[in-house]
């Protein structure tokens, strides 16, 4: 089988840090090749080298049997490589066709030839089975369709080798399946796909070959069919990790958080929550499942006082906290692990200790008469670094110098050690590697066992299945249904996530 891409002994250093060390990668032409690895394993660096965004310190890049140097992305595009980034770069006010041809507009007499662009977009759309309306404005479209446009952009630039960075992170299970269909269509037409993912099931389902990176080195490249999911985990982490539902004892107490008929608007003033009602009891983890953008973020923001509700009531321990400020809600006993930890959860440029201080800077013994108690802060920081196993050089390390998992541990260390008896946890392991995921899950279970009422919002179903006592599925700002955590049918949840109420079925034993 000819090789579409061959990377030979790629080494890339950032100062003293080696992101890729002597990495070899051979991607067969006409195959779907998955690249997996923990965060910081060097996947993104390697792909950026391949796409000309970074220059390797050592090593060679061969494309279709020819040695190439790729000084910039333009050179990579010329060589037939296209990259679909995790975060889409589309202009919402432009149409689909305009976005596809942005920067390489088809011109006629110095003006943009809109008709030709629309025609070409429709042709590409048809050829590759990526259904879009070329004349629609992007701002009105769903995430799944935005991704199709990103892929069309790459195809319009003549890519024969397509790199997708975590493409399924924002999709519903159904949308993911459609994407896989598209990818299989690509290889059927002789193209090559490189697929970066965290989701092992997906890798097992869609890829022909898989390469595993660990700590900047590649540890294995095998045909996917020869491997099991647990083999992959072991290769990635270097040890055995279990992803089964965590064992638990019933510790459920009185209702702590009570939400009734809650309505709220999003940043565009459109309704994001439409009459949400539920309760969370002490010692219980209530999971919120749903595709990102169905009101989960707004729910967490309203509950933590960062967004105002337009109707309905929120009660904490029987006391109404509707309309209270973030400060008052914190004081009333709500801890919040925000979904976007780099934006809300930490100040990336500040030290660990300064990040741990947030929200309690006015409380004794953290400060006395308005003066920060530096010794106490330092002691506490050291203790929390130890207890939460934050891998850092010391209390003065800046947050941005840490990996995603360790940054998340700072947030947990701060929010879990306050006096809160209700915890709002939004995407606790997004972008966090498997080793840290395990310890974060353990910490959340300990909080449950300590009698905290926990609302856990996650777009990862396996996380909810592992942790939640009950799962509520959100779609379009409403709760579509409730499923007990120990009897989950992924198909049923998937349908609820897509806004379809499934037919009642007798078989609820889970799709094992």
């Amino acid at each position, binding site marked *: 089988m000819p090789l579409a891409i061959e990377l030979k002994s790629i080494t890339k250093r950032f100062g003293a840090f080696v992101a890729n060390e002597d990495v070899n990668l051979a991607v067969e032409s006409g195959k779907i090749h998955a690249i997996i690895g923990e965060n910081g394993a060097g996947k993104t660096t390697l792909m950026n080298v391949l796409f000309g965004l970074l220059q390797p310190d050592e090593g060679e890049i061969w494309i279709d049997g020819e040695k190439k140097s790729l000084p910039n992305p333009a050179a990579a595009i010329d060589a037939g490589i296209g990259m679909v980034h995790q975060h889409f770069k589309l202009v919402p006010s432009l149409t689909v066709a305009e976005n596809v041809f942005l920067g390489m507009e088809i011109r006629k007499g110095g003006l943009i030839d809109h008709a030709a662009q629309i025609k070409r977009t429709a042709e590409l759309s048809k050829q590759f089975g990526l259904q879009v309306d070329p004349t629609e404005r992007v701002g009105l479209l769903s995430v799944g369709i935005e991704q199709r446009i990103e892929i069309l952009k790459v195809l319009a630039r003549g890519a024969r080798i397509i790199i997708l960075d975590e493409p399924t992170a924002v999709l519903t299970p159904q949308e993911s399946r459609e994407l896989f269909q598209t990818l299989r269509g690509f290889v059927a037409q002789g193209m090559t796909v490189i697929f970066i993912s965290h989701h092992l099931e997906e890798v097992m389902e869609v890829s022909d070959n898989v390469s595993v990176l660990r700590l900047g080195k590649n540890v294995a490249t095998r045909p996917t069919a020869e491997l099991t999911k647990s083999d992959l985990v072991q290769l990635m982490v270097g040890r055995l990790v279990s992803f089964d539902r965590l064992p638990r004892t019933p510790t459920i107490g009185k209702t702590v958080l009570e939400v009734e008929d809650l309505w709220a608007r999003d940043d565009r003033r459109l309704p994001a929550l439409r009459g949400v009602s539920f309760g969370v009891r002490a010692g219980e983890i209530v999971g919120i499942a749903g595709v990102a953008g169905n009101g989960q973020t707004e729910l967490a923001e309203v509950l933590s006082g960062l967004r105002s509700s337009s109707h309905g009531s929120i009660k904490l321990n029987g006391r109404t906290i509707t309309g209270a400020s973030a400060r008052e809600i914190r004081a009333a006993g709500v801890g919040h692990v925000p979904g976007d930890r780099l934006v809300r959860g930490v100040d990336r440029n500040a030290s660990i200790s300064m990040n741990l201080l947030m929200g309690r800077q006015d409380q004794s013994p*953290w400060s006395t008469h308005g003066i920060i108690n530096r010794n106490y802060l330092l002691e506490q920081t050291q203790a929390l670094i130890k207890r939460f196993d934050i891998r850092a050089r010391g209390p003065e390390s800046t947050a941005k110098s840490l990996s995603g998992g360790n940054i998340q541990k700072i947030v947990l260390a701060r929010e879990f050690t306050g006096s809160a008896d209700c915890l709002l946890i939004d995407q606790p392991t997004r972008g966090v590697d498997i080793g840290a995921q395990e310890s974060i899950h353990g910490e959340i279970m300990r909080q449950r066992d300590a009698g905290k009422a926990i609302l856990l919002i996650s777009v990862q179903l396996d996380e909810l299945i592992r942790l939640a006592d009950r799962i509520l599925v959100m779609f379009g700002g409403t709760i579509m249904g409730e499923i007990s955590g120990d009897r989950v049918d992924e198909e049923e949840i998937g349908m609820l996530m897509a806004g379809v109420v499934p037919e009642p079925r007798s078989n609820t034993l889970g799709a094992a």
Partner: protein
Amino acid sequence: MSDRFDSLFGQGLAILFALGLGALVILTVDESPVRVFVTLLNGAFGSPERIAGTLLQTTPILICGIAACISFRGGLFNIGIEGQLFMGGFWATWVGFSFNLPPALHLLLAMAAAVIAGMAWIAIPAFFRARYKTNEVVSTILANYVAILFTSYLTINWFKRSGGQSETPPILQSAYLPELFSFSRLNWGLVIGLVLAVGVYLFFTRTSRGYAVSEMGANPKFAEYGGIDIKKQTFLVLIASGAVGGLAGGVEALGVHHRFMEGFAPGFGFDGVIAALLANGNPIGTIFTALFFGALRSGSLLLEVDTTASREIITVIQALIILAVSAQITIRRKASDSTAGERRWKF
């Protein structure tokens, strides 16, 4: 630690680069750059009198720089310090010549008037920034012109000293800010500035309120999430910055001129903003950058006497420094993978 070194090193390099370019400019007017720089140094530090003269120029720049530091730390950009200084200077003078009071009390009231005038002058921009997110850069910069023309109008049309000059009557001795030495007009304003610099530094590094302001400046969403009242704090930070800007005017009026006149304090407010920028918003660092600008100003006096170069050369060099430093800041921001809208002023 190495961060701090990097930034100091970078700043130094930027200044050197600007001086180098300045040397080229001096060559174009057929003067020796070495002679110009030596004259500058001599003019700024050549004798106790000249050092005092330099410190006299440094004082208002320092106090204005501290005012700028306060707003920078909160992620805000008070560029209206010039206007606050004019208002502070005018109203301190007004208290100084309108009332007859015991010495300490008179001085204190005149200073208070300066502070209140500075706060009042930023109150409207501060309110609109806090309540409606109106860009404070635009509103404070516009307020500058109004302040300068308004104080000029008051001076000429309401409080002009009988006979000649466009200036107010002199203030009474009881409102003088005492001089430090017999041989110079250098006064206690310098001490006020130094104490203020240390105080503001400690406020930001040691107190919980200072922490809250710093985090609001570094990452407002994080601060909001942590329960900090962004609107209220934005208003207060700008008011505090304006208060110090007004104080700078009071010190200038009560310590140096003992009256208010047109062109009362040319560009001290803007120099202060630049000094604070050069020091990365650190009030301690601002002491040194303010001294640098003070030395340029006072050294340039001798320049015209001893060389064929004109004072405008100094303005050119200053502009080059600003250019070099802002270019350096931009490059650094681009190099660090900063998220959108993030501003950081490091200590």
